[in-house]
């Protein structure tokens, strides 16, 4: 008797446990179409979302189901390629790594392009000035002497010295969170300094002198005012301000 009573109830209970609540959220997106809008403006969109989804999923729903003209960059959708840095609720984040439940789902989620780079359309900015600074620090291994005839070996400790800065995905979240960069677009910016750090402290590299020269420039590391916005924004958990401080110290202690 008992068995008969409980058996039909069991599947229903299972469904309940497995169900994830979905709810309606509002995305407040700063739209800009250079062909028609003199100024960017805010637009609200309602989408049905699960707390376990990411802001990127919500943006997809807007683009695929409501307004195909919404423009943003994304590629991997898994925090690897660095395409989708944007300002979510006033802070630089990757849309693909920000969960809806962490982004105040009960209030409108504000989404806008990153600050300090030229706005092209909606959430897309011109990344060229950012990559120009990246190129300035010569982000490639500079060997010395003759072409090597055997492997260029490195100890674990030597490799660990610059491990943190190898993790950068060039998303620009750090550089575009920096108040110094907003007002002075010439400043190399945290991401370029992180890239320089990766080679300066690599035992196989011999270009430290040239790189430090670039970083010692007026628009180099000394522009850094340690606001820690970059460290807080980095989706890869790089302690950007600490890395910049290491480069500053290297500049002071280098033997000229």
């Amino acid at each position, binding site marked *: 008797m008992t068995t008969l009573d409980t058996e039909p109830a069991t599947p229903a209970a299972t469904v309940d446990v497995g169900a994830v609540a979905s709810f309606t959220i509002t995305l407040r997106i*700063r739209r*800009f179409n*250079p062909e028609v809008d003199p100024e*960017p403006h805010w637009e609200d969109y309602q989408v049905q979302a699960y707390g376990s989804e990411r802001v990127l999923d919500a943006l997809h729903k807007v683009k695929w189901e409501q307004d195909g003209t919404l423009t943003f960059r994304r590629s991997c959708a898994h925090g690897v390629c660095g395409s989708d840095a944007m*300002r979510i*609720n*006033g*802070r630089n984040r990757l849309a693909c790594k920000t969960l809806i439940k962490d982004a105040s789902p009960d209030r409108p989620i*504000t989404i*806008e*392009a*990153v*600050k*300090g*780079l*030229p*706005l*092209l359309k909606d959430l897309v*900015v*011109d990344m060229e000035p950012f990559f120009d600074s990246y190129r300035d620090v010569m982000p490639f291994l500079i060997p010395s002497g003759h072409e090597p005839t055997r492997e260029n070996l490195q100890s674990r400790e030597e490799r660990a010295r610059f491990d943190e800065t190898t993790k950068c995905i060039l998303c620009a979240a750090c550089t575009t*969170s920096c*108040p110094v960069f*907003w007002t002075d*677009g010439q400043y190399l910016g945290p991401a370029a300094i992180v890239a320089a750090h990766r080679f300066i402290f690599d035992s196989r590299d011999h270009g430290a002198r040239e790189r430090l020269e670039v970083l010692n420039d007026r628009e180099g590391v000394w522009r850094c*005012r*340690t*606001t*820690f*916005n970059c*460290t*807080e924004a980095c989706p890869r958990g790089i*302690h950007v*301000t*600490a890395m910049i*401080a290491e480069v*500053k*110290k290297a500049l*002071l202690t280098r033997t000229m």
Partner: protein
Amino acid sequence: MPKASVGTLYRGHEGMWSWVAHRITGVLVFFFLFAHVLDTALVRVSPNDYNTVIATYKNPIVGLLEAGLVGAVLYHALNGLRVMAVDFWGKGPRFQKTMLWSVVVLWVVLMVPFLIVQLGHIAQGA
């Protein structure tokens, strides 16, 4: 011509606001120094006029401005030490928030006795 996106205020953390406060206090101290150099230079032009100008400073409004100036100098100095520690002390970046709250606590501890004395002076019209 594409323009940079301005949009909402960036919601930075303690580090950003400590920097904003550092800027503001720095500008305040600069303007004080500017006025101070001018009035002190006056003593070489005419000691009598200098005395007249300095006498006008003895009023409650200037007394409150002085209190503000001390507050600004104190914050700028203490936070300046913190910024140096962030850059040149290996553990600085890790302890930046702790150091900021220490700066704030120290600032309050030093400002309270000073304000009591200063407000006393103002009340006496000195």
